[in-house]
């Protein structure tokens, strides 16, 4: 109960504090540079120069402390030893390059980077194309979109049940093994067989992300000018041709956006691996490696180095995003 009181009080303080801050700081500014008297013109100008910063101050402060400052501290820590006390030069990076688990993580991350965005975008595109053409499309969309609301841990439980293994002779309760044994295969412990287990983890993320791809791509498909489609119908194009040669080329930009957004999610994937295999049996990924070194290894140097590698992999997309946003603003 006490906890709820605390939460409620925090909400009140937060909301009330925010309003007070904005209100009082604005009032103070108006007092300082009143929009009247002999200096009115100059005062208004000066107040208008300061006011935006008053509006932005809390956000900028939080962004700086919670996102900008950690980037620099992480870079600094990656050159320090396990406790963050002594400078060790590039030792962490050299260790990382020679570490088997890191190489495995890099390899797996690359697999994830290729497979998950490609599969999610492809399935999303198919789902968008078919659900736009049927009467129960909205229901179908909601069903495919639903996994977006499910936590990664919840999804991990759902799919672990799918992959569940029972020894031969017992009734299989995982659907994958049930289908597999029905087709004449031998029951497998799927999650411990290397390479295939990584793909089974990826399927979980594909399952979650397809809905996202579908929603965005469906909106893009509906935004295509009718004339181009009508013209192609008149020219005798088949539905498949219309889709592949008229519609898809027109939404390339959106496909790229979907692809990069999913790529970023993939680079940060952590919960699924942690809860389903914890990086064992050859499924380690960078984010989980970082977490391992942070909590189990208690080595802030190595953990920060792993985090920096993730950051480096995100950076090209970040630059691309910023350039796109800048171009749009112009």
């Amino acid at each position, binding site marked *: 109960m006490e*906890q709820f009181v*605390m*939460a409620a009080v*925090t*909400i009140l303080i*937060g*909301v009330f504090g*925010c*309003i007070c801050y904005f209100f009082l700081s604005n009032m103070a500014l108006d007092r300082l540079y009143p929009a009247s008297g002999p200096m009115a013109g100059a005062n208004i100008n000066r107040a*208008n*120069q300061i006011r*935006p910063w008053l*509006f*932005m101050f*809390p*956000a900028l402060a939080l*962004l700086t*402390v*919670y*996102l900008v*400052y*950690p*980037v620099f501290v*992480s870079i600094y820590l990656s050159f320090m030893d396990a406790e963050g006390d002594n400078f060790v030069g590039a030792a962490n990076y050299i260790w990382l390059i020679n570490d088997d688990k890191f190489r495995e993580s890099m390899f797996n991350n690359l697999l994830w980077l290729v497979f998950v965005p490609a599969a999610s975008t492809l399935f999303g595109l*198919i*789902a968008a194309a*078919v659900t736009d053409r*049927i009467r129960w*499309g909205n229901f179908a969309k*909601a069903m*495919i*979109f*639903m996994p*977006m*609301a499910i*936590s990664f*841990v*919840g999804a991990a*439980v*759902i799919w*672990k*049940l799918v992959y569940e293994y029972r020894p031969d002779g017992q009734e299989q*309760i995982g*659907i994958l093994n049930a289908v597999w044994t029905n087709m004449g295969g031998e029951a497998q412990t799927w999650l411990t067989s290397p390479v295939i287990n990584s793909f089974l983890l990826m399927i979980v993320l594909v*399952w979650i992300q397809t809905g*996202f791809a579908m929603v965005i791509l469906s*909106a893009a498909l509906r935004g295509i000018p009718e004339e181009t489609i009508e013209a192609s119908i008149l020219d005798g194009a088949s539905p498949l041709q219309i889709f592949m040669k008229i519609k898809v080329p027109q939404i390339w930009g959106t496909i790229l*956006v979907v692809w*990069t*957004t999913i790529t970023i999610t993939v680079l*940060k994937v952590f919960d699924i691996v*942690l809860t389903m295999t914890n990086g064992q049996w050859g499924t380690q990924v960078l984010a989980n490696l970082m977490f391992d070194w*942070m*909590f189990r290894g208690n080595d802030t140097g190595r953990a920060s180095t*792993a*985090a*920096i590698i993730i950051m480096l992999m995100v950076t090209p997309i*970040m630059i691309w995003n910023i350039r*796109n946003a800048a171009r749009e*603003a112009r």
Partner: protein
Amino acid sequence: MDNIVGTKSRLVWAVNLCALALVVLWTFPTFGLLVSSFRDRDQISASGWWKAMFPAEASVQYRAAGPDTAVLKDGLYVLEGNIFDGGPGKVTAFGTSIREPGAHLVNEPVVTDAGETVAVLANGDFTITSPTAMEGGRGMRIFATSVTPARFTFENYGRVLGAEGLGRAFLNTLTVSIPATVIPILVAAFAAYALAWMEFPGRALIVALVVGLLVVPLQLALIPLLKLHNDIGIGKNYIGIWLAHTGFGLPLAIYLLRNYMIGLPREIIESARVDGATDFQIFLKIILPLSFPALASFAIFQFLWTWNDLLVALVFLGNSADQLVMTGQLKNLMGSRGGDWEILATSAFVTIAVPLVVFFAMQKYLVRGLLAGSVK
């Protein structure tokens, strides 16, 4: 062009089937979890959840009462009982040794090596008769193959919410996500207004910074912030996680809200300025009410994200009962109760229930937010 009508109907069929296949594939796993959460432990290990609707065949093992409880009837020592203890079920076959649990059909009495006659009826009633006094300290074991009708139970939910600590974790998750959703909205709204409707040098730079920060991996922020929180005395606490979620959610909040606000009609804002409204008044009385859809979109995002988050909670909150959130509890259960699917399925369903309700109720805003939020 000779058969355009026919082709069309075939295409419609193909499209419908394709959509159906996708929907089934995408809902099947979740549905399995839901069904499993209503089955008890024995049912889950006896058969796959897809068989839950049908009567289940299971093997039952029952130990009869001790020999000393046998009663003398017409010169025979008799022991009676029911292997289902009176519950529902239908025996199809039974046996007296573990090696042959289904050796005999019901209604066919068997004589064991010890000279005892065992008979089992379809409803589970059994009688053990012996011409001499029965010996041994413990009762005889009877094995039976039984068919139990489809049965669902709510027991798992009670157990998970109470004994497994998920009820408490539910409250903790609520404690984390509500403030972490409410606080960033106001902070971001003011900043978004400044970035959308106020002229000042450096504006483009800050917008670029916000877009850049959208993709900064959380992993980078964990160690420095944990150190910072420990240094300034927040430690592992709710205050810490509220602040962290606020900070991490701000770039998306500012980005979404600014994109929305910049699309509001310029005339409204300018005429308000001409009428002498201050920026503060314009923001509070015009911009904020008009931006409701964008605010709702962000609120849903942030709520789903904070509710479903595991990483931030693992780092910024402790592992004690009063701080463990549901995702963390579920992760612990996966470790400690790896094979107890009735517990896992039910716990998982409890954790995803609230997001699913929010999702279905507010899907419109979620879609709108997604469309606005993906960097174009």
